């Protein structure tokens, strides 16, 4: 165990001293904070417009018919979550790839594997270090964005909101671990590091951008602005009846979406943050029941990719491909 800690400590020290890594993480943090500031300003503009509107109505002696815009503080995190979903996954790939690539490039693997360490010491140490880095990173991003929402957006957080944030941190952490483990596996098994990076990026493109986009496009609600059925003024029961004739189509769309870990992460976090309307202001228990399958999928993806990375990052594999 001491040897695993040594590898982990060295990896963290290495990341701390890497200007590129710190720049990437710093850039992400700033982008997330800016997104919350922009969302807060946007809400402020809407609130001011509403006030102007109601003042004008009151001056005309008309009772205000419109409901006031409501601020759901957690909604301000939407952009930050989308950044985590897209850029976070990319950064996780870069960090996971770098953890293995730098050992191959430096030529330190032969020194490491002539020490009396176990088959899994190196990979457990590296993954452990990256898991800590991501936990710290996600916590900082979520806390910083919420702090920004409180300061810039004058948002008030309830105890339930804090619970939702903690569950969001957990989901984001697992999501980033999945991508880290994927990159570690690919970098370990690829004979050429450039191939490893290209394969990882192509996988990222497919899973993070292409599959969710195709799935979204196949959703009738996304095919015309406002939703296909709403724009045709078709009531919900009729919509259900119509869709019953397209079960194959819907199954294909569902199968496509559930194959992407990104979609599970999005459904999970959007539900807990109330960004998805049906879960907004719902008790955590209700949300949990609704996204249990997505939470389970996230865990299964994480366990699967971590196990694969354990067995692909053994000395035999690394030394075979590090020439």
């Amino acid at each position, binding site marked *: 165990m*001491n040897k695993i800690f040594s*590898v982990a400590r060295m990896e963290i020290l290495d990341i701390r001293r890497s200007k590129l890594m710190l720049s990437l993480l710093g850039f992400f943090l700033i982008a997330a904070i800016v997104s919350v500031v922009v969302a807060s300003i946007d809400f402020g503009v809407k609130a001011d417009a509403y006030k102007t509107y109601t003042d004008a109505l009151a001056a005309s002696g008309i009772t205000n018919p419109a409901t006031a815009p409501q601020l759901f503080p957690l909604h301000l995190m939407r952009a930050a979550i989308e950044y985590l979903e897209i850029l976070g996954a990319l950064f996780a790939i870069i960090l996971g790839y770098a953890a293995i690539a730098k050992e191959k490039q*430096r030529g*330190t693997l032969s020194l490491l*594997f002539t020490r*009396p360490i176990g088959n899994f010491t190196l990979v457990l140490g590296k993954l452990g270090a990256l898991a800590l880095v991501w936990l710290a990173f996600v916590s900082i991003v979520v806390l910083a964005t919420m702090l920004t929402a409180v300061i810039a957006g004058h948002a008030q957080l309830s105890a339930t909101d804090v619970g939702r944030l903690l569950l969001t941190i957990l989901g984001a952490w697992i999501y980033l671990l999945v991508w880290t483990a994927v990159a570690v596996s690919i970098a370990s098994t690829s004979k050429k590091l450039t191939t490893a990076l290209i394969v990882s990026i192509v996988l990222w493109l497919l899973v993070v951008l292409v599959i969710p986009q195709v799935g979204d496009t196949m959703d009738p609600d996304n095919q015309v602005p406002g939703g296909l059925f709403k724009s045709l003024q078709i009531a919900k029961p009729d919509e259900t009846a119509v869709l019953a004739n397209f079960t194959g189509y819907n199954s294909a769309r569902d199968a496509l979406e559930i194959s992407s870990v990104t979609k599970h992460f999005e459904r999970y976090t959007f539900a807990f943050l109330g960004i998805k309307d049906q879960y907004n202001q719902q008790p955590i228990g209700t949300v949990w029941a609704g996204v249990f399958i997505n939470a389970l999928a996230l865990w299964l993806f994480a366990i699967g990719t971590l196990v694969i990375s354990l067995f692909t990052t053994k000395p*035999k594999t690394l030394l075979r491909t590090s020439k």
Partner: protein
Amino acid sequence: MKSLYVFTEKSICRLSVLSGTRPYCDTMNEFAIVTKDLTKSYKDVVALENLNLSVRQGEIFGLLGHNGAGKTTTVNLLTTLLVPTSGTVEIEGVDSSKSAKDIRKLIGYLPENVQLYNNMTTMENLRFFANLSGLKKPEARIKEVLDYLNFNSHYNKSIGTFSKGMRQRVGIAQAILHNPSVLFLDEPTSGLDPEGVRQLRDVIIRLNADLGVTIFMNTHLLSEVTKTCSSIGILKGGKLAYQNSMNSTLAEFPDQDSLEDIYLSIETAD
């Protein structure tokens, strides 16, 4: 610095003069390294064929050969970095096929063009390798080894600022931290300037004399072999073409003026 050897019925205990190190007890083996019919193939290419090699305790052994003769493959097999296609490797009587991890406790390794963690200091690099070798509280041992190598003034400096020769010093330090009984050096003088070569040669000879470490080195530099090695082996096309002590070798070829001539005569012989 001297090592004190204590002979008992079943073992030779080498009490290192470097304080804080536990006495290292070798089982009574005449040979530190023994290979039997050691073969390594990569698909259809045989890199090493039926290598039968024996290196005595306390020797400085030089393995010579042209590029592609199988020298690095041999070192990689002996250090457990490669698994043999067939044949066996024994280091201090421990069979590598049965316990590679035990062999790694017995050996130190300095690869060609030693690469360390450039953005770390000497101390951070050495502490890392000491921890991987299972040393508890390694700081005192690291200072002692650096002192032995006259490198203490670079204790807290970043490796990235070091010359090739300085890196080699740190590389040797990491290789001897855990008090190994066999040290493998792969082309240790490669890329060093004449001063660096001389300093490294002095270190190798001192390690062998003071600590009784058996040293196995691959090299192209025949002048260095003459000055440092007590025995040599010559690999030719993946096969051991010659092995003998340095003195016997020089006596065996009285017509040749130098080791270089002897080497070339063996290399060019059918």
